[in-house]
């Protein structure tokens, strides 16, 4: 099973990031990847963000590196990164499609990712090229179970 969002720790005297034992406040209609990106299920265009579990583990986000509108992504492609004080965390696309929108508010206010990861702090919108991929993602319940299993 792939690991949850893993970012490159600082090189040298390594400071591997500790896994916070947090419970997520999950949106009831969302779908989750094992990498803690979530997508509220709507037709055609999906919003992508990171889960509460991920934003808590990451710490305060100080900078968001997001792709340009029009970027074509395959599932699991790296599409950006979130910078915390300590480390860089790469973001992997949960779905294949084209980036239609990026959250411009994050340029001035990257902390929105922490404060409101499911709404104002969402990251990008993707027009799906393969909606069947939605079925491969985890439901809220499954995600909670997954988190518990990796915490052990």
């Amino acid at each position, binding site marked *: 099973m792939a690991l949850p969002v893993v970012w490159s720790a*600082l090189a040298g*005297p390594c*400071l591997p*990031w500790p896994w916070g034992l947090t419970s997520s406040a999950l949106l009831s209609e969302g779908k989750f990847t094992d990498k803690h990106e979530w997508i509220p299920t709507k037709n055609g265009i999906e919003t992508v963000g990171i889960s509460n579990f991920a934003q808590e583990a990451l710490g305060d986000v100080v*900078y968001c590196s997001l792709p340009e509108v029009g970027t074509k992504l395959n599932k699991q492609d790296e599409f950006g*990164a979130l*910078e915390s*004080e*300590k480390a860089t965390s790469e973001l992997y696309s949960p779905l294949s499609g084209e980036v239609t929108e990026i959250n411009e508010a994050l340029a001035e206010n990257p902390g929105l990712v922490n404060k409101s990861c499911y709404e104002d702090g969402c990251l990008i919108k993707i027009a799906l090229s393969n909606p069947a991929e939605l079925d491969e993602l985890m439901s809220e319940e499954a995600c909670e179970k997954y988190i518990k299993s990796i915490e052990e």
Partner: protein
Amino acid sequence: MQRAVNMVAQLGLRLQALPLALGRPLSCAQDVLRRTPLYDFHLAHGGKMVAFAGWSLPVQYRDSHVDSHLHTRRHCSLFDVSHMLQTKILGCDRVKLMESLVVGDIAELRPNQDKVRELQNEGSDVSLEVVDNALLALQGPTAAQVLQAGVADDLRKLPFMTSAVMEVFGVSGCRVTRCGYTGEDGVEISVPAAAAVHLATALLENPEVKLAGLAARDSLRLEAGLCLYGSDIDEHTTPVEGSLSWTLGKRRRAAVDFPGASVIVAQLKGKVQRRRVGLMCEGAPMRAHSPILNTEGTVIGTVTSGCPSPCLKKNVAMGYVPYEYSRPGTPLLVEVRRKQQMAVVSKMPFVTTNYYTLK
């Protein structure tokens, strides 16, 4: 009051090859991480423990990294730095031993032990004793005021880089050194292991004091322009390259009697090939291993440490560039996630230091 050059704090040395006598290892075989005398104390205070240089240490507590960092600059923070073991050097030839190591890697005990044996074989009178003490760093503008409440000595008479033995909050035989790794005024207190928790508890009773971990320690020292051994300096860098020529004593330079002297003195006289510089940029943070380029796009160096500066709200970093690019103000590029960002060579410290010096 004795003058003591605390290289450990200034160079941020990391220990390797530690004697097994100390460290209170875990009872289970899984991870042989050493524990300081404050291990349980850290857990009790919400410390998030990580493995660091073979030790289990708190990376942060309940406050966020940035909050902890800023608290240190505005009030004071208490750090457990007991992983930097302390050694007593004994014998008539102890100065000879130290001088054979200065401007070398003095925190590596294995070479020390070899050197001790070498000198002993030559008939020198010297031996090493690892001291069973914890080391607590209290750092920040209110650190001295907090400590003063627990010591009889007048701390106004203990300037930066001096040291004295005193009773601290009822614990006798503590060595207090006016030094640290944050750029702020502060002390490092060497306390017998058995009394470490008592002392940490006493210090924490003052509302000015909060516990801080490795995360804040790293961003604080970076803002202060202090090196991290293993990242910014290592066995392949000289003090001249590392912009640390100030560590070379005048007498030693003339005598040319320290490890690497022939290389180092030549660099002092002529030009040095590369130099450690400070860098600042906006946009995405520069991190270790980010390439540094000149404005023509040619790779000329590498970042060795970097982070967003909580105080400056800009990104700061250290790295090595060829001598001709090392002047403050030189525009450069740093590659972050395949994008080239404008950066500028900056003087260090990035944030003004507040060392307590008598003038």
